[in-house]
């Protein structure tokens, strides 16, 4: 044991000295190890700080009280977790259930106690433009029990029931001297205060019972003073029908077995599929770091080959030689992990104000999650150790005589490992196929095998990378000198080249896989997008039975007179009376249209003018047919697929509330025109000429305000506020066509950026190490008359070889999970009951060729140019060229 320790001590000492001597290479490894550790540490620390765990935010919610108790009017069989507001609670609704009163609550808790009522919720108030939303808290803010819930910044807390205090965010919306609530109640604003939980949010603070709120935390709530409220007491209050947020219970939550059986699963956390994918992501990051750091250890091992050969010559065993290289993994991994954690915590501290800026919820105290960070640091150490393993084994098996004789280069490539690589890629394809089959079948869940296939494919690719590098070197004979030199040298030094190539390939595989899945997903969204109005038009809709259409029309005319707002009439489908319309062409199936329903409160438009169809967003051909039919006095019926025009039977039935049966209002048989629509969707079922509607005895009313000229964003905002002041149910919609989610664009940019950074990192490492390794060759080149720029050419050549081989391999490998994942992602086979309608697909694949071309060809060329430009042009002028 002591012998082994001694041997490690020697290895560690050698590694430490070597790390200090070749500090540039050590620095490179340190950065590669420390960066991911730093990023994860900073993210974890910020998340932990953001999370309000356990007792952290308790003062913000409870003030100085021991507990908050709240009740719902008809709640019975109450069960809760330690924190019923965020952790989960359950109850049954029974009309006869009576919640406990304040007296009963205090009696149950016992001891010296008192209670202060508190009500939290939402309300609407009048702004300069219309109505705005605010959160509300009504309690006695002068009571010390409520201290900590909000902080007064000016004025005084409300002293009477006609006074309120508001937050700055609310004041910014210009409510006036008095706060006018919905319903007309006017309250004097006597001060400003801010919630301690949320920043930049509109808040109204008032005395208990003042605000007509709709609340989330119970119909009645009290803050209770006195000694700690323990879990036993919480259960007693639950039995009475009350929920309890207790300071003592939050600080010392009950174990799962103490919870009501209903509540034991509410905190289950992530499911096993998510966990599997999380583990696979960690594995992928580990592989990436190992691959990036690998070349540095390979070069370190080679630069130490003489030392190792001398150790061997002096009687050292291969194991001892191996340990010298592994020890450098330990030294650099430990240093990188510690550095990453320390810098990560510092970065989180520095970033905290910036991140807070983007979040309305106030962060908790700065909180370092030490235990997970231990895991992150271990990750750093393990990745360095793993990166050192292969070079260590190769170094320990080297030919001592060759090394001492001054010959360079790697041993021959293994013939077995490419075969294993091929098998792994085959397994990956099989896994991906399995995922595709599962996704198309019932039950879904193809994601896990596909994610697994990604990792297996990357592992196979690592074993195939040497083959690709050697193949390129074979083909390099006709290439210009710098490229030929780079390709051949890369193949000679595979331990250095292959990890770098594989790192680039793994990055590109990830980018390609995600790119294919994102663009395919987007293609699905784009293809299946159905406009709800004609492109560019806007509408105001209200599904209430007695909507104030003239008021909406007036509001729209006021905001956008130039856009020609007008009323649309139809058979109303809003309100409580149900109206059913059916159209059946003689000799055709009963069901004509799979889905309808748009921004109008009707499913049948009654056209006073054939031009009314323009509101429906049909394509030019369909709109033309519909217009001609209406002009001829024929009804227009929309259909999934082409149906011959001809006699159709139209029926209108109605079912009033409390009636059990539908009564037929009218039925006619007329010649009708069937207009097929894309996507098996139309905004309405049919458009009837007024004459046909009259014959059907159908009720006809205003069903929407149409703004044919559309609205600008500012007009939309103004009109929204105006109609909100008329009715809370009114909605303004503007048809702008399919809008690519800005998040998707950002994700694509981030992907491309990440790909570029990692590729640059991988090639930079490899090129830098290759150049320092090739110093004697560069000196020879200089001696036979190479121009200074030849070195630049060689540097660019290395970068091109590593980047190109890596990105081509990576694109091929990434396509396996990338194509497969589109199946579970865009699967629509369960979407249609019958055969798939025209123009629709059950599955979408859209390959982002431009992005792939950019990553596979553009990025390597760009990195090569950057390398060539950044490389020193001076060739080494060695005095003694030995």
């Amino acid at each position, binding site marked *: 044991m002591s012998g082994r320790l001694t041997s490690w001590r020697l290895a560690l000492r050698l590694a430490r000295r070597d790390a200090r001597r070749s500090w540039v290479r050590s620095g490179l490894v340190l950065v590669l190890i420390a960066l991911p550790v730093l990023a994860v540490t900073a993210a974890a620390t910020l998340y932990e700080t953001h999370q309000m765990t356990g007792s952290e935010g308790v003062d913000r919610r409870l003030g100085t009280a021991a507990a908050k108790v709240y009740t719902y009017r008809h709640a019975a069989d109450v069960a809760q977790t330690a924190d019923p507001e965020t952790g989960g609670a359950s109850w049954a609704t029974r009309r006869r259930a009576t919640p406990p009163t304040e007296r009963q609550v205090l009696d149950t808790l016992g001891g010296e106690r008192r209670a202060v009522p508190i009500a939290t919720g939402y309300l609407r108030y009048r702004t300069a433009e219309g109505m705005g939303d605010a959160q509300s808290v009504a309690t006695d803010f002068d009571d010390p029990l409520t201290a900590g819930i909000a902080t007064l910044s000016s004025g005084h807390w409300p002293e009477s029931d006609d006074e309120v205090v508001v937050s700055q965010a609310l004041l910014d919306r210009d409510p006036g001297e008095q706060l006018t609530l919905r319903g007309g109640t006017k309250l004097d604003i006597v001060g400003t205060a801010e919630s301690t939980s949320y920043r930049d949010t509109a808040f109204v603070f008032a005395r208990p019972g003042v605000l007509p709120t709709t609340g989330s935390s119970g119909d009645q709530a009290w803050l209770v003073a006195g000694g700690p409220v323990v879990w036993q007491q919480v259960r007693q209050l639950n039995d009475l029908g009350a929920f309890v947020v207790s300071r003592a219970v939050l600080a010392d939550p009950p174990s799962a077995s103490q919870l009501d059986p209903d509540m034991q699963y509410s905190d289950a956390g992530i499911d096993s599929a998510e966990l599997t994918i999380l583990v696979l992501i960690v594995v992928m990051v580990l592989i990436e770091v190992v691959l990036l750091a690998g070349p540095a250890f390979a070069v370190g091992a080679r630069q130490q080959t003489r030392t190792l050969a001398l150790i061997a010559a002096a009687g050292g065993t291969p194991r001892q030689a191996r340990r010298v290289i592994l020890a450098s993994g330990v030294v650099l991994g430990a240093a990188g992990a510690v550095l990453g954690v320390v810098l990560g915590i510092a970065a989180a501290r520095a970033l905290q104000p910036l991140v807070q800026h983007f979040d309305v919820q106030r962060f908790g105290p700065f909180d370092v999650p030490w235990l997970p960070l231990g895991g992150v640091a271990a990750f750093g150490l393990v990745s360095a150790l793993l990166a050192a393993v292969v070079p260590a084994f190769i170094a320990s098996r080297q030919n001592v005589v060759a090394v001492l004789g001054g010959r360079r280069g790697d041993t021959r490539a293994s013939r077995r490992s490419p075969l294993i690589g091929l098998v792994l890629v085959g397994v990956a394809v099989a896994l991906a196929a399995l995922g595709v089959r599962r996704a198309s079948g019932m039950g879904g869940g193809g994601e896990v095998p596909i994610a697994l296939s990604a990792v297996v494919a990357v592992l196979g690719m690592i074993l195939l990378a040497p083959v690709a590098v050697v193949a390129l070197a074979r083909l390099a004979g006709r290439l210009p000198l710098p490229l030929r030199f780079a390709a051949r040298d890369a193949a000679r030094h595979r331990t250095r080249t292959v990890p770098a190539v594989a790192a680039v390939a793994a990055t590109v595989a990830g980018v390609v896989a995600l790119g294919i899945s994102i663009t395919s997903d987007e293609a699905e969204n784009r293809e299946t997008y159905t406009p709800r109005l004609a492109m560019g038009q806007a509408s105001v809709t209200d599904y209430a039975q007695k909507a104030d259409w003239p008021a909406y029309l007036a509001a729209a005319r006021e905001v956008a007179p130039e856009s020609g707002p007008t009323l649309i009439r139809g058979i109303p489908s809003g309100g409580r009376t149900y109206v059913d319309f059916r159209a059946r062409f003689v000799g055709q199936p009963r069901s004509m249209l799979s889905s309808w329903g748009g921004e109008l409160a009707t499913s049948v438009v009654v056209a006073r003018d054939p031009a009314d169809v323009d509101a429906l967003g049909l394509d030019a051909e369909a709109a033309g047919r519909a217009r001609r039919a209406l002009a001829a006095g024929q009804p227009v019926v929309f259909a999934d697929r082409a149906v011959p025009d001809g006699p159709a039977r139209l029926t209108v039935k109605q079912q009033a509330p409390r009636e059990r049966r539908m009564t037929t209002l009218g039925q006619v048989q007329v010649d009708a025109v069937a207009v097929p629509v894309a996507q098996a969707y139309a905004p309405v079922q049919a458009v009837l000429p007024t004459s046909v509607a009259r014959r059907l005895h159908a009720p006809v009313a205003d069903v929407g305000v149409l703004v044919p000229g559309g609205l600008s964003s500012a007009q939309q905002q103004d009109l929204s506020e105006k109609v909100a002041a008329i009715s809370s149910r009114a909605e303004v919609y503007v048809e702008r066509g399919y809008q690519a989610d800005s998040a998707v664009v950002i994700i694509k940019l981030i992907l491309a950026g990440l790909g570029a950074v990692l590729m640059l990192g991988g090639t930079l490492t490899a090129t830098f190490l290759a150049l320092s390794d090739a110093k004697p060759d560069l000196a020879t080149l200089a001696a*036979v*008359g190479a*121009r*200074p720029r030849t070195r630049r050419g060689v540097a660019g050549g290395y970068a091109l070889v590593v980047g190109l081989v890596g990105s081509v391999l990576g694109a091929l490998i990434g396509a396996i999970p990338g194509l497969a994942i589109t199946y579970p992602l865009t699967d629509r086979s369960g979407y249609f009951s019958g055969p798939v309608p025209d123009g629709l697909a059950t599955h979408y694949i859209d390959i982002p060729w431009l992005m792939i071309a950019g990553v596979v060809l553009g990025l390597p060329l760009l990195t090569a140019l950057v390398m060539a430009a950044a490389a020193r042009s001076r060739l080494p*002028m060695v005095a003694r*060229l*030995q």
Partner: protein
Amino acid sequence: MSAVLRLVDVHRTHGEGEAAVHALRGVSFAVHSGELVAVMGPSGSGKSTLLTIAGGLDQPTSGRVEVEGSDLVTLSQAQRARMRRTSIGYVFQGFNLIPALTAVENVALPRELDGVRSRTARAEARAALEEVGIVDLADRFPDDMSGGQQQRVAIARAVVGERRLILADEPTGALDSETGEEILRLIRARCDAGAAGVLVTHEARHAAWADRVVFLRDGVVIDESGSAPVDRLLDEPAASR
């Protein structure tokens, strides 16, 4: 007959002040076409410095270095590199072949670097390998060749493209004596064909291949003849210090 290489009062000092090392102190000599000059002297006498300066790899602190009439000192780095591609050929003790390139590619290197089309460069390289007698090894990599074969490739590389100055730094140092003799014979033959050669060596028997011997000691030429007994000159202390 004009000199292919002419050194005029060349000084080379490494470092400054107290720590200054005077590697060469006023060295002058010339090498003409068809002539092989051996530079001899003990370790640290400045032999290798002389050769790097003659090849334009290093610059003298003062003095002139003329190769085929152009003064290397006044040329830019790029122009000196051009001279090495077209006029000067190096042969090193350690062969210094590029392991990633085949024999023929190593020989073609100066021509290719000079912008000659790769097919032409390879044809010239094959001809040069033919001259040194190993054209059958043209497509081998250096690691698969013996030391003597590697040095023949290096000589082929030094002479390819009709270069007229061959600088050889202990070219036989890593070879057995029989192979070494063959290498010297090749260099001699090249000089007889019209090239000018400088052979740095510390072995007296190799000097026998030379037309003239230049003796260096502590950076100074102490004899430039072919007549004086070599062993005596090596043993004698410096004439001037």
